């Protein structure tokens, strides 16, 4: 981390570290798919010289060199980026990897956004790193205007349906209100059956419980399950086949939707697509 006095870029990253860069990064490695996606949304491409191993959106990403925090750091060091953008998990769990890179003179910045309300702050800082402040602002503006639009549609809906959001199926876990997915339900005009549920700590995924869920069978009009790394191998059939699920109103009435985790739980513009898709499928608007 450079700490020259006249640096233009100063902010605090999500590890609480004060970051100051003398000039915007020209060569960036992004180790997290959401970062990569957002950087592309701001119009970057050639500046992104490396991405994480599981990043796959937009398609241009697939041509980039991939770096893994589980590999030897020499590849990344040899690529000689100006900055590496990581996320909390990497920084906390792979301190050795991060340290090795920093020791080689490459700053590692930690950004992570799991709550809807943190989105603005996150995008702003991301934009600062690459000197795309204006593009960042535009992105946010676009985001919020579309959200408002969807929300307006949602508010107009009557009667509102009640939904359950499945975060991890096997464990009957749902999400908290302030997460992206939790917020999504409200925005598109659904009542969340789990709205009283509270998180212990900062986690956005919380347990709802099998019996609890089934006991509310009659009240669940809509059942939404996200499909992604946390909730693999699910399909409408597997959910219907779970013991007792045939009782759930949403299942009986065929209101069971599966949505890509990337479209509903991650801090990118595709979130908007997810909202629209769901709203359309559920309410036909």
């Amino acid at each position, binding site marked *: 981390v450079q700490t020259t006095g006249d640096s233009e870029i100063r902010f605090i990253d999500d590890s609480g570290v004060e970051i100051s860069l003398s000039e915007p990064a020209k060569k960036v490695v992004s180790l997290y798919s959401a970062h990569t996606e957002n950087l592309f949304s701001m119009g970057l491409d050639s500046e992104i010289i490396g991405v994480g*191993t*599981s990043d796959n959106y937009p398609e241009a990403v697939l041509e980039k060199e991939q770096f893994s925090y*589980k590999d030897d750091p020499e590849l990344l060091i040899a690529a000689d980026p100006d900055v590496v953008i990581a996320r909390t998990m990497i920084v906390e769990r792979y301190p050795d990897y991060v340290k090795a890179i920093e020791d080689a003179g490459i700053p590692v910045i930690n950004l992570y956004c799991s709550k809807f309300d943190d989105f603005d702050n996150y995008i702003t800082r991301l934009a600062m790193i690459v000197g795309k402040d204006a593009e960042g602002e535009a992105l946010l503006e676009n985001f919020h205007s579309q959200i408002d639009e969807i929300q307006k549609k949602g508010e107009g809906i009557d009667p509102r349906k009640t939904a359950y959001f499945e975060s991890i199926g*096997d*464990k*009957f876990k749902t999400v908290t209100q302030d997460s992206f997915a939790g917020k999504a339900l409200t925005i598109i005009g659904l009542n969340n059956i789990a709205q009283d549920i509270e998180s212990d700590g900062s986690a956005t995924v919380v*347990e709802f*419980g*099998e*019996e*609890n869920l*089934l*006991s509310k*069978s*009659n009240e669940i009009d809509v059942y939404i399950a996200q499909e992604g*790394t*946390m909730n*693999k*191998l699910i399909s409408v059939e597997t959910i219907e*086949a*779970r*013991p*007792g699920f045939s*009782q759930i109103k949403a299942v009986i009435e065929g209101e069971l939707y599966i949505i890509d985790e990337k479209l509903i739980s991650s801090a990118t513009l595709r979130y908007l697509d997810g909202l629209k898709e769901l709203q359309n499928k559920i309410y036909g608007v």
Partner: protein
Amino acid sequence: MKSKWINLILIIGLIGLGLFAINVGKVNLTEIDSEIGKTIFYKIRFPRVLAAIFVGSALGSSGVILQGLLQNPLADSYTLGISSGAAFGACLAIYVNIAFGVALPIQILAIVFSYVVIAIVMWLSRVKGTLDSANVILAGIIIGSIFSAGISLLKSLADEDVVEMVYWLMGNLASKPIEKVCVVAVITAIGYFIASRYMEELNILTLGREEAKSVGIAYDFVYRLLLLTAVTLTAFAVSLCGIIGFVGLVVPHLCRIFVGADNRKVLPMSALLGALFLLLADTITRTVLQHEIPVGVLTTMVGGPFFIYIFIMKKR
């Protein structure tokens, strides 16, 4: 005599706990719609209680057999790599399903790989010499650790999808379909029945290969049969609900403290105690705790210290 009384108490305890367990849960059934209540009762709680009972006794019984066969207090289904094999099968199915979008049945692969492991172990210990405990154990550890490494390999290939495997491996009894539970129940009953016919032989096997043959045991046949029985018991239990490690290891020890080394007494008691123990642990995690923790975790956290207590009290 004494062991009969203990067993009677265990049976009564098991029935009582079973009835209790099926009537409690996170949701009070009297307060909700009776249709939904019925569903929860029959489709959720009943299979779960049944699963706890049969898986518990399968693990308890197979522990007795394996400790006897291998003549080693360390022995449980891990020792021979059976659990590793089952876990590998399950992880392989999960991985292939995710990577290639197919739908291999996890349970069946788990069972198949348990048998693959034991087949290799038996082959290896034959090649090495006689089918005795030292050879079988050595072969078992090697094969077991290779399959464990296989699991790690799958985990590292699966990258972020690893969560799925980790959860499977941790083992729990929630939401098992009644049909699968019934399969395990039937297998456990058959396995237990076969095992119980051969407990006198198992006692004698511990004298060693030569001594056992001298008194008329068809050593290799009995050894193989019991090994297969133990594997089958473990494989089906593990395939249903992942790895629940502590039961097969500690329950037989506990029983031996009460009724001595005679496996004819240890087996039924171990099956009962295993069932009771697992049911108890599962009921606790299901009802008392705010968030369920994997039942294998709970059995160990409860059983471990309890075992230590007994262990110390017995002095020696």
